[in-house]
């Protein structure tokens, strides 16, 4: 099956005073139409940079060193600026983490949604307003006739994020990139935003690339999951299979650090959250060995000498590890 979005060996590098830093290191991914792919990992593991690099939005002085980004067969990296601008906001919509600061404080909500419609669809102001009203109700904003003329500071965080989503879907994109869309919101609001994204996926038939560090969000929303660590893709699997049979020790570590409210451990005692010792390393050069080995309980000499390739371990489930699975003797690390 051909994919809507195909990323191949994408590498993003930032020059710094202390030498280059590799934020994304030879990452490939495929996203099929109408699919929700979640990219998970700790802060600083490169998942946001991956999202930004798809649309060529890596902030300078960062640069995409190599790799290809194919959207529907078009290599976005070869497009000239003007053609790329026509893709941004039209074929690919983007939702950011902080809805309040992603809206321009001096313009009304309606004006900001209308800007996108005027830019990509060439609508006049009256048609844009009609479409904007429809969009506002589509993203579940009550009293759109009133909200359309309000300013961002008059909205709650959840409302603002719904407006951002309205902007992102205004031109019926094939792909929605959502970078931590619920992280800045109250827990009670998060579920609503997530439900909205999924229902829009069904109604508009778009694919969603969901960047998150929240495994709860992944379990609720994702069809497939990709786990990133220090700029590398370490595991990818259908969401259910990832939770059922995690292969990479890093994924196991992430799962061990999740709270399960209400669930009582089998031995009846208090359940301690496990943390992964250490921090995500700063990557000064492309990986030539397993980048997780300093924090990995299973690391041996081979992990320090060789780079593990992604290998299919289960159906549609691949991991980059020499010692995959639940653990050496079936116990979690």
């Amino acid at each position, binding site marked *: 099956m051909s994919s809507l979005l195909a990323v191949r060996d994408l590498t993003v590098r930032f020059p710094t005073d202390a030498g280059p830093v590799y934020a994304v290191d030879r990452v490939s991914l495929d996203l099929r139409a109408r699919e929700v792919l979640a990219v998970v990992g700790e802060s600083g593991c490169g998942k946001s940079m991956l999202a930004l690099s798809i649309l060529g939005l890596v902030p300078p002085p960062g640069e995409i060193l190599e790799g290809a980004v194919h959207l529907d067969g078009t290599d976005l990296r070869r497009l000239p600026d003007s053609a790329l601008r026509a893709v941004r*906001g039209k074929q690919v919509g*983007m939702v950011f983490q902080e809805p309040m600061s992603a809206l321009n404080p001096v313009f009304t909500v309606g004006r900001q949604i209308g800007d996108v419609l005027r*830019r990509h669809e060439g609508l006049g102001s009256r048609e844009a307003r009609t479409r904007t009203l429809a969009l506002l109700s589509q993203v579940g904003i009550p009293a759109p006739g009133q909200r359309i003329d309000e*300013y961002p500071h008059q909205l709650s965080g959840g409302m603002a994020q719904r407006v*951002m989503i309205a902007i992102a879907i205004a031109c019926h994109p094939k792909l929605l990139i959502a970078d931590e869309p619920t992280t800045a919101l109250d827990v009670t609001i998060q579920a609503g935003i997530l439900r909205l994204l999924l229902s829009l996926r069904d109604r508009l038939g778009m694919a969603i690339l969901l960047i998150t560090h929240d495994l709860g969000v992944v379990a609720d929303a994702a069809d497939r999951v990709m786990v990133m660590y220090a700029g590398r893709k370490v595991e990818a699997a259908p969401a259910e299979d990832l939770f059922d049979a995690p292969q990479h020790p890093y994924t196991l570590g992430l799962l061990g650090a999740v709270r399960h409210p209400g669930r009582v451990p089998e031995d009846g005692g208090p359940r301690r959250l496990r943390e992964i010792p250490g921090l995500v390393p700063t990557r000064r050069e492309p990986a030539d060995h397993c980048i997780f080995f300093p924090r990995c309980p299973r690391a041996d000499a081979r992990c320090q000498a060789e780079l593990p390739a992604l290998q299919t371990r289960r159906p549609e489930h691949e991991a980059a590890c020499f010692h995959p699975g639940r653990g050496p003797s079936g116990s979690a690390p």
Partner: protein
Amino acid sequence: MSSAALALETPGGRFLRRFLRERPALLGLLLATGVLIAAVGAPLLAPYEPGANDFDALLVPPLTPGHLLGTDELGRDILARVIWGARTSMQAGVFATLLAIAVALPIGLTAGYYRGWWDSVAMRLTDTLLAFPFLIIAVGLAAILGPSLGNATLAIGLVQIPKIVRVARGEMLSLREESFVAAAIADGASDRFILLRQVLPNIMNTLLVQATVIIPIAIIAESTLSFLGLGVQPPTPSWGVMLTAAQPFMAQAPWLAVIPGLAIVVATLSFNLLGDGLRDAWDPRGRR
């Protein structure tokens, strides 16, 4: 005011409510409006032509019937000359400020947005301009182009350019980091759209405050240049020219110096008060 009502307030409404509570700012607005009206309406408001001589009333003190603020040594009505002087001062103040903004704003915004070599060039140029003392530039321009109101305005405007370049660049640098700029780029906005439609409206308030700072500086600068004979030439009325002319008569007719001096103070102070009020009313961290 209830929080619900506050939440429904537009930015403009909130600004207006806060501005109207600032007494000094309102005074500034009132006085500045007065100076502007005097400048625009000078031909209608002035009781005499600024050059008209009344040889029956030479050096009469203020409150003389027919000459509310007295006359000078040539029998010219001081009130008429102060009103016409406002026109000169405001011309210099407003046009110098407009000139500076028109030149500096595009430079500052593009330097802050694109960074790189253009930023370096722009900043070194403004540093160079900053290194010249104002009077040297003004004397040089007057020497090359001849002393006149237009050339004085040019010199005043030129000297203000670096300040606005720096302000515009600084605002741009911080706005460049705002998510809404990143979001606009992600929505396919062009650089032009981002500069003119996303960023410019966000710095209008800073620019306006900056203008209220520069206008009084320009008014004083015009008076200084005219006082030194580098700006407006007699007999054209200007507060600086009036001060020069007043010097020999300081002992007999002090009002010749006091009245244009007061005019300069009032005009300058009004814009400064107005600017402070605008800044406070716009400052989101200020009290409600």
